[in-house]
């Protein structure tokens, strides 16, 4: 089973990659982790990096295995807007308070001690 996995990996490594930038609704470091984790487990994604300041997510992916549309959809399913694709409502509602858009927050966190 392991050999099979590593085999398919080796083949996939050789494929062509491309990089896109997606404007998200990320709010904080926690959102960065959520989104980057979602990307890490997304098929075809090689690398991702979210800049919290600009809310821009940079994704490097294998062109043979996925496309920008699928990646935006995955960001949406993690609970965040991705360019013109709105966040999946169910995923958004289960985000912790600090990751929601300011107008939707209930609690005010006083910050870390």
């Amino acid at each position: 089973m392991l050999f099979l996995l590593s085999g398919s990996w080796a083949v996939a490594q050789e494929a062509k990659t491309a990089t896109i930038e997606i404007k998200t609704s990320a709010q904080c470091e926690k959102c960065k982790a959520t989104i980057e984790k979602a990307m890490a487990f997304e098929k075809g994604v090689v690398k991702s990096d979210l800049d919290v300041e600009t809310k821009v997510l940079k994704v490097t992916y294998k062109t043979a295995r996925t496309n920008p549309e699928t990646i935006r959809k995955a960001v949406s399913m993690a609970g965040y807007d991705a360019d013109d694709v709105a966040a999946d409502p169910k995923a958004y509602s289960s985000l912790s308070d600090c990751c929601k858009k300011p107008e939707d927050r209930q609690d005010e966190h006083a910050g870390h001690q």
Partner: protein
Amino acid sequence: MKQKHFILIFLLAVMSVRVLYGQTIIKGQIYESSDQAKLVVLPYANIYWEGTQTGTVADDNGRFSIEQPSKSVNRLIASFVGYQNDTILIQNQRSVEFKLRKGQSLGEVEVKERMAGSFISSLKPIKTEVITTAGLQKLACCNLSESFENNATVDVGFADAVTGAKQIQMLGLAGVYSQLMVENIPFTRGLGSAFGLSFVPGTWMESIQVSKGTSSVINGYESTTGQINAEFRKPDNTDKFFINLYGNNEGRLEANVHASSIIREDKLSTLLLGHVSTQFRKIDMNNDGFLDQPLARQINLSNRWSYEKHGVMESKFGINFLRDEREGGQLMQRKTDEAIQAGDYVIKSATQRIQVYDKTGFIFHSLPNTSLGLIFSGLLHDQNSNFGLNDYDARQIGFYGNAIFQSQIGSEAHTYNAGVSFMYDNFDETYRDSSFNRIESVPGAFAQYTYTHGTKLSVIAGLRLDHHSIYGTIFTPRVHFKLALAENTVLRGSAGKGYRSPSILAENTGILVSSRQLHFSGNFKMEEAWNYGVNLTQTIPITDKRKAVLSADYYRTDFVNQVILDLDKDYQHIYIYNLEGKSYSNSFQVNAEIGLFEGFDLSAAYRLNDVKVTTAGVIRQRALISRNKGLLTASYSTRFEKWKFDFTGQYNGRTRLPLNVPALAAAGYGEFSPDYITIHLQITRKFKKWDAYAGVENLTNFVQHNPVLGADNPFGSDFDAGMIWGPLLGRMYYGGIRYLIKH
């Protein structure tokens, strides 16, 4: 086979529900900050109001409730060692959720990517190691008996060479001296001792808490050497659906399925846990004609319910059903029935268990910190078995009830528990042509006082008084303390008494698979021992994200009375009698855990057990117990745990073998068994919705040679399959998948 009685009993139990009076009570739950959608509960964290001494400790599920002393005190802080503090400003909300991030940095926001496999709770006065789901998944197979391979505190080994029964040891003493509980309900009392560990499927468990030494008097007079409590998955906070499929090259297949449904949000939920497994391949690596492990089939079902009336009461109840069948012995050539016909040595065992339970907690709003918990459990255990020509049939009808009241005296610094309990067991055992019927009924009362001075000092003093229908009055005193010597240095100690009533046949399957004659002498008394222990835990922060934890402990157990199985007197008998002389155990252990670099954890432990007992009139090292043990574990995971690699290496020292056994000498043994090393490896790959894992157990392929003495003549005088000191199964490869759907 006797007529079956089904007794349905209802009961209740408790959780430490703490509630407070006054105008404002804040309830909440604490999680580990995690980037997954699924929240991981963080138990035992501290919660306190900024600038005050008012605080509380979250329970096993990370739940807490705390009173707001006044509107001006409005910053609620959650803290836990190894995690960053978090503060929530309380305005009008009555319920809050904390998500604590790992690491001790102050300013920087740190992202938690991994969950520790195990940790030592820094707050409980009783030192408690918590094995988390992540820890349980490091060794994917199969049930509670495999959950301790990477833990130095608990040893697990086969009880004999044919039935597949496994037994644990703590402090170098048999597992029966520690108390095994599932959700704080005694689990393997009486007949459950033999195969009980294999009745708890690995994936059902959310966590296991292990504590050494005597534990709180609340749970009874048992737990002389320690307590193990397994928490199952909870209906109200588990995945919607989970399936685990497992297989290995020795012919074991296993499936675990969990399905949960929230019927009414925050009110009523239910969870169905299912397990089926089979050992279908006949394996005889050592060519002695005996199966190395029995053919087995098990079906195990549990339906759990959770009901909550917010702020008033909480109830968890359910029913468990199990059927377990195994067939072992000389089955390489023939089918079971044919082998019996042909006069071969065959063991057969069929066990059925039904358990119902209820744990209910009530909260009193008129008094601060006051609650009442009720626990009830009813058990029917029925076992029919043959060991060669010997039949052993047993049935136990048991009832357990415990009512625990908790409140405070004046302030939160002084809390107490008091309550009453009742245990009833009706045993009906038949071995060959002797029957061992007995009814044990034990009403009891207990009280326990806890003094807490912030996080610095806590002291627990407890007493219980029970009246046993056979053994009379039992008085159990116990004390525990925890003292924070410095910010990262914690000293703990305990002293107390433990008792248990012996169930000789059920607890020692090894003596049933031997030609040795059992020779019982005297009326057995209750087993009784003192246990004392100290331990020191030192946490050393290395960087924001990594730390080292060093700990050392020493425990001594001194038996006042013990039922001795004397294997040393002569090889044709096993003499069973009350202790004449001394019996004690000294156990010394050191542990070091260190996060070497991001994603890489290393732990090492060394343990010395000096266990002595008087057999054949002389005090000597207890047979088949190894004096030295070493453990090394390493775990590496890539970012987001996409790949995970786990290594577990164990060194087990030699053990003393029983004296004057010609068959041992004939098999080439001297005074001691050899020492050996075992290694387990596992690789896990996480995908979006599922995980795949593969591994190898016992990589060094070390097995005990000649585990069945006199295997060529099982009805002759040399036959003995009960002298086990090492692994019975060779190198084994396994793999499996887990798939889950979240709510």
